[in-house]
């Protein structure tokens, strides 16, 4: 399967607004002023361009994440860690039962290159798909400029812990990370660290909440501390998670401050299962067979906790592991 980007063919939407069309397999993506148009062998699907770019940004930045990234109830990707399924209607019973679901599998590098190209070309100057809606401009209209700096941000992945020598660094005013407007009351004091000579790289502490208060992105879990395959991935959330994340393993949430309301649906059928209301100090598991979307009325801090063991998706799929983490 080859990824092809082309600006030779006339766009099927009939007007040249300056955006490149993108083709991968039998999928073709085009954009106009307001929509992403996705053409596939069984039809055409439209997604509002702001929602599409916000979802695409997460899919690209997360490396297709753990499991399924549903852009909306029809379009999405499934990560097989080396290959990626690009689908229409796969997680939508209406599409499946009518035999309208369509899936193609691509090498991760190929679909990543296509998605990165699309994100870069389709993001106009002034629009940051990682920012909260209140913090950024509009994505609409004919092509005008770009925002490559925003869409090419690298996700933070600490090897051991943020701030250690040779590990990922701190966020400060001077390196371009001011405190967010909704976190101006978050204390910025640093812990006292008294390391004896020779132990400077082991006796270590930092202000995680202060670090998070300076995050310039939303809904982007970043690895901050590591215990073997246990990854603590804090993130700051505001407005709405731009995707429905379908789990392929159990994931945990610890609410550090403020409140997030999660809508939980069955991962396969989309049938509503629960709402989970999380306030400061609350801890909840996201079972391996659900999908979830979060709503954060005020910017909040969420500690997403992941098990990075590569064997897990197969073990859950085979039924070797139950989809929930504890029995009582």
């Amino acid at each position: 399967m080859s990824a092809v980007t082309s600006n030779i063919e006339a766009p099927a939407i009939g007007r040249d607004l300056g955006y490149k069309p993108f083709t991968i397999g039998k999928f073709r993506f085009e954009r106009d002023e307001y929509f992403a148009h996705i053409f596939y062998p069984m039809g055409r699907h439209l997604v509002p361009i702001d929602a599409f770019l916000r979802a695409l940004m997460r899919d690209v930045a997360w490396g297709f994440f753990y499991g399924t990234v549903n852009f909306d109830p029809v379009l999405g990707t499934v990560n097989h860690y080396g290959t990626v399924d690009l689908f229409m209607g796969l997680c939508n019973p209406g599409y499946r039962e009518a035999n309208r679901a369509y899936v193609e599998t691509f090498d991760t590098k190929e679909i990543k290159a296509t998605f990165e190209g699309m994100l870069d070309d389709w993001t106009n100057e002034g629009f940051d798909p990682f920012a909260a809606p209140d913090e950024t401009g509009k994505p609409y209209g004919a092509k005008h400029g770009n925002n490559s700096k925003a869409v090419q941000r690298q996700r933070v992945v600490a090897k051991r812990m943020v701030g250690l020598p040779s590990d990922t660094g701190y966020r400060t005013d001077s390196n371009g990370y001011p405190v967010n407007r909704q976190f101006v009351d978050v204390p910025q004091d640093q812990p006292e660290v008294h390391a004896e000579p020779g132990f400077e790289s082991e006796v270590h502490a930092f202000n995680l909440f202060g670090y998070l208060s300076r995050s310039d992105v939303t809904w982007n879990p970043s690895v901050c501390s590591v215990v073997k395959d246990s990854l603590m991935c804090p993130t700051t959330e505001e407005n709405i998670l731009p995707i429905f994340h379908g789990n392929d393993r159990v994931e945990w949430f610890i609410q550090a401050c403020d409140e997030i309301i999660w809508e939980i649906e069955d991962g396969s059928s989309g049938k509503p299962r629960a709402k989970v209301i999380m306030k400061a100090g609350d801890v909840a598991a996201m079972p391996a067979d659900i999908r979830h979307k979060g709503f954060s009325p005020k910017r909040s801090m969420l500690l997403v906790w992941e098990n990075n063991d590569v064997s897990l998706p197969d073990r859950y799929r085979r039924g070797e592991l139950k989809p929930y983490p504890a029995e009582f």
Partner: protein
Amino acid sequence: MSEYRTVFGSLSQYEKGGVEVIDDNPKYYVFSNVFEVASKSKPYEKICVGKNLKYVIEAVRAEGNSPWFSASHDEAALCMDGEIEVHFVKPEQPPVPETKEGSVKLTGEPQGQKMGWVKVRRGHMALLPKGSAYQFRSPKPGVLLIQTIQGENTVERWADICQTK
């Protein structure tokens, strides 16, 4: 212009959310609150509030001096409330074999080189480096979350701490 107020929790003041079931079992979400758990725990009990196979998140009520602990792997401690010191010693002999996972409670005071200490407050995260011995000291009650691996001191009492219906 509105002023934003960030709401954190503490032992003395927290508000708990919950699972509103539509068609599900609330137990699947293993829902608890670290401040509630710590408010009902003995000092330095390591109560499991998150479990992902062998990996755990433990909620710990920090009050007074803890026993000395050690692990063969890194751990991380996040202070959720209070002001807590963590003191580190490099033991003369590794107190925990490489093959053993989870933290181990040491008997008495470890012999070895002092590595230093940190003092953390709410929101501060400290490394508990592999092979070190460490002790928490907290004159007043506080709350820690420990990112670690399930060990002999990890306490699971889900039915007591989690929403069941």
